[in-house]
């Protein structure tokens, strides 16, 4: 018993020591914070532009299905090419290519652009499924009241579509947040990269656990946000 206790104390002391060197020694926590900031910035920018790109692509594709306009059909073809190429190639390869062709700027911005383009492709498919999930009668009712196409989309179809796709959207953004961990490939010091290099100096794996914990916390917060939004949007459901 005595022996067991001693070895536990020993292990615990060493654990505290490792944590100290991984987190506090040389003010390393500042490095994590900076890495976290980078990760969050990339994820947030990609999320916002992903939504914008995704929405435009989805609207273009869905309206090309019902319209005869050749311009729209051509745009829809381009959109198709975009989703096919982006979804068909690994995000790391896309980043490496983008890093090469954006040599004028830092990897940080290349990441923002790359992840925006990447996320847009996935988000567009989510939006498309959302728009298609709304009964055609809804837009007919809108049009019959004299609303134009844009108003019908904005006031009637999208609010309902977004409610339907909220879980899928959050799924995508959670995946996106974690995917930014490959930013280190193009010399961006995101939280993963930071943890990895601290591990190289402290010679223990504590930084990696810290990094994992940070991602986990972020995802938990996002899930909370999702639940909150879902509850708010469920107002109109039968109670």
């Amino acid at each position: 018993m005595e022996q067991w206790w001693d070895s536990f104390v020993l292990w615990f002391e060493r654990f505290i020591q490792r944590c100290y060197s991984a987190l506090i020694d040389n003010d390393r926590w500042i490095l994590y914070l900076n890495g976290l900031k980078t990760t969050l910035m990339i994820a947030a920018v990609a999320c916002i532009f992903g939504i914008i790109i995704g929405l435009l692509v989805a609207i273009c594709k869905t309206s090309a299905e019902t319209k005869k306009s050749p311009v729209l059909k051509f745009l829809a073809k381009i959109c198709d090419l975009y989703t096919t190429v982006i979804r068909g190639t690994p995000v790391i390869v896309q980043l490496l290519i983008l890093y090469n062709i954006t040599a004028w700027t830092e990897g940080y911005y290349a990441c923002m652009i790359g992840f925006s383009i990447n996320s847009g492709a996935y988000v567009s498919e989510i939006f498309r499924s959302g728009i298609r999930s709304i009964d055609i009668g809804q837009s007919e009712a809108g049009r019959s009241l004299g609303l134009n196409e844009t108003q019908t989309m904005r006031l009637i179809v999208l609010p309902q579509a977004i409610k339907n796709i909220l879980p899928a959207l959050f799924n995508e953004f959670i995946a996106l947040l974690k995917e930014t961990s490959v930013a280190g490939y193009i010399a961006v010091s995101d939280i993963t990269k930071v943890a990895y290099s601290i591990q190289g100096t402290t010679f223990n794996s504590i930084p990696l656990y810290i990094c994992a914990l940070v991602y986990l916390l972020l995802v938990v917060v996002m899930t909370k946000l999702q639940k909150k939004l879902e509850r708010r949007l469920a107002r109109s459901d039968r109670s």
Partner: protein
Amino acid sequence: MIEVKNLKKKFGELCVLNGITETITKGERIAIIGPSGSGKSTFLRCLNMLETPTSGQILFEGIDITDSNCDLNKIRQKMGMVFQHFNLFPHLSIIENIMLAPVNLKLKTKQQAREDAAKLLKRIGLYDKADTYPAMLSGGQKQRIAIIRALAMNPDVMLFDEPTSALDPEMVGEVLDVIKEVALEGMTTVIVTHEMGFAREIATKVMFMDEGIIKEQAPPDELFENPKDERLKFFLSKVL
């Protein structure tokens, strides 16, 4: 008010409307009857261009609405439409459903739209439901809301596309009462219906459609008492 000239509609190879020429004058109450697949709904939906005709012309208050230069949205504001499946907007409360179009088309201020909506809701006895959502209403209530949502635009004509076909039998009456009230106030009305009794009661003219054309039309008493067309006779023998 509405002039239809040689209207044709094809879905691919299938010819749904086979040349309809018809005039609907102000204040008329038209009931369109006929077997399923006869093109009744398609005809009605062509009237406000929810279906684009393959050929032919539709003139509404003198304007050719089949012309691609015509401002359809403006025209549709003057044509109220009620659907078989209500098509209320589930994400908006009842009063928001009614206010949405007048406010967003800047025809009324929010205040004014709210007052008008309240008036209409009181008229059909559903004012207490103003702030609930469509999911909490019965089918009959939904359809009555859909009718006043169209009325809130102050249309010149009301189009009803089988307004009671998706309702429980119990609720048909309350919806027909509202339609009747609207129609008898002088609103120009076109209604596609399977309720023969109702057609007979309120219509000034009944049209019998079959195979994409209007086979016979007459004032209700005449059409129901003395049908001439063989297909109409057969149809009436089945439904009456």
